[in-house]
């Protein structure tokens, strides 16, 4: 059953979109990531213009993240205060990122920057996560005691001014690091068209040293705010949000996210991180290596003026 998308101006198979939404929603709920980095390549592969794919999936990410956050919130696994601070930085970052991306697109370098960001960021983060999580998984298998969690919170977290209490995370740190992380994630999410969870989750675990229990929920809460802003900005500035597309995706997405949030309780955090790391690495390589392959047609249409 094909359906015509009014903004994307292509017709696509509706059950396929709902299924895609469900799969990405499940992964989203399971790992606490938006899942945009998985969905954008698939949508583009289905023939949807990249600008519309990126903008509409942001709206899908709002829905599936909201669905998970309500679930996590009831389990008191969301640090709303930390999420709000991260999101404040994220808002600034995404405003900057949207403008940077507009210029890159007009210079015809949008594709390249997207591919390279996928390769670099997904590659580095996936690699780091894989090493770390495999390491702790192996130690557990060998029956060794888990690595002694020294209080390795770096001194700069405490040395900076503007300290704030984050009771849910049991932290009393300066707001400057979270805000900077937020800005960085905001820029990335605008340029790569993703929520930024794959950067945020490791940043919260390894830089801010937040307790694992609140990381996923808080990351999703921040993602809701950033992607809502991206949706509104994209709709307002570029008219690239396709409600029909977003509705189909989020219909599957909210269901998938619920199932994912439930399933996450059954796995160990390390195991989940190994799987996530592999997914992140694979997508990064798949997206990024394209720039090294000789193109079949040396000419490409550059977006930005219709046609």
């Amino acid at each position, binding site marked *: 059953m094909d359906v*015509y998308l009014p*903004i994307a101006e292509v017709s696509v198979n509706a059950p396929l979109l709902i299924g895609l939404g469900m799969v990405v929603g499940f992964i989203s709920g399971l790992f606490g990531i938006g899942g945009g980095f998985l969905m954008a390549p698939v949508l583009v592969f289905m023939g949807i213009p990249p600008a519309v794919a990126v903008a509409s999936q942001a709206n899908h990410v709002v*829905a599936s993240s909201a669905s998970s956050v309500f679930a996590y919130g009831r389990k008191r696994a969301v640090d709303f205060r930390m999420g709000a601070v991260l999101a404040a930085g994220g808002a600034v970052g995404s405003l900057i990122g949207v403008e940077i991306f507009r210029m890159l697109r007009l210079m015809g370098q949008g594709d390249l920057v997207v591919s390279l960001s996928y390769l670099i960021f997904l590659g580095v983060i996936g690699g780091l996560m894989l090493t770390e999580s495999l390491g702790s998984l192996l130690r557990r298998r060998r029956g060794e005691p888990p690595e002694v969690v020294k209080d390795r919170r770096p001194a700069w977290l405490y040395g900076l001014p503007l300290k704030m209490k984050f009771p849910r995370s049991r932290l009393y740190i300066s707001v400057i690091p979270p805000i900077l992380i937020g800005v960085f994630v905001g820029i990335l999410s605008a340029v790569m068209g993703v929520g930024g969870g794959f950067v945020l989750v490791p940043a919260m675990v390894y830089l801010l040293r937040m307790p694992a229990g609140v990381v996923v929920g808080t990351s999703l809460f921040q993602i809701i705010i950033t992607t809502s802003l991206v949706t509104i900005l994209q709709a*307002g500035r570029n008219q690239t949000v396709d409600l029909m597309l977003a509705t189909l995706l989020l219909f599957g997405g909210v269901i998938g996210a619920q199932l994912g949030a439930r399933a996450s309780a059954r796995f160990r955090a390390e195991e989940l991180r190994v799987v996530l790391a592999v997914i992140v690495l694979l997508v990064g390589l798949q997206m990024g290596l394209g720039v090294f392959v000789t193109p079949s047609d040396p000419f*490409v249409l550059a977006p930005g003026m219709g046609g």
Partner: protein
Amino acid sequence: MAYDLPPPPVPAASVSAALTTTKVEVTSDYHGQKIVLYGAVFNSTDRPADVVVVVRGPDQPVRIARKVQVAGLWLNSRPVVFQGAPGFYTVASSRPLSEIADYGTLRRLAIGVDHLAFKTPADGAVETRFGVKDLVVSRLGSDYLDYRRAVVRIKHAAGLYDQNEHGVTYVDKGLFRAEINLPTSAPIGRYQAEIHLFQEGREVQVRQRPLEVRKVGIERTIYLFAHERPWAYGILAVLLAIASGYGASVIFRRS
């Protein structure tokens, strides 16, 4: 259309034609559409007449970039803008265009994908667009033809440009038909079907038939809403998303 033709010899040949569909309605199950054009040639002369059917969609400026390899990476060169490229263009005839009329005539009438009047602003022109300064609009020189062919090739691959020298078929003496295949990606807007009649390399008559592709129903409502109230549209989209996320979490908690 008045051209400086020599007074046609009497009696002249003439053509008339009609489209089976003049309004293409884009609904949720739109897959593109096939449109048939029927026409008749009235030729009481003893000179053979050729029919060429041209369908043009609304103009869509094209930005095209060439990929160049720099240090192992394939990068896009700065894009070049072509003005006046139609968003949809198809030519149908019953034999090769070059046998129907000469190069100059085809070029003047813009018949055939090689004769489309793409305009690139003067070489090396620099202008400011969408707040981006110093956009080089064209500095093609001898590469112009490569770029032009690439535009045609890419549009052809998308089913948007076509040239078919067997596209006009005669169903009976003097009675012809031509099929126009609009792909899903064909732009929305006003189209023009032109039916050219050639005799001995000269255009003796041209008839025009309008064709409109438009969105209807929910598709049109969404499209207009998105373009006329973009900010409200964005906010609504977010509210819908949050509401459905909340809805799902409530349903799943109870189940």
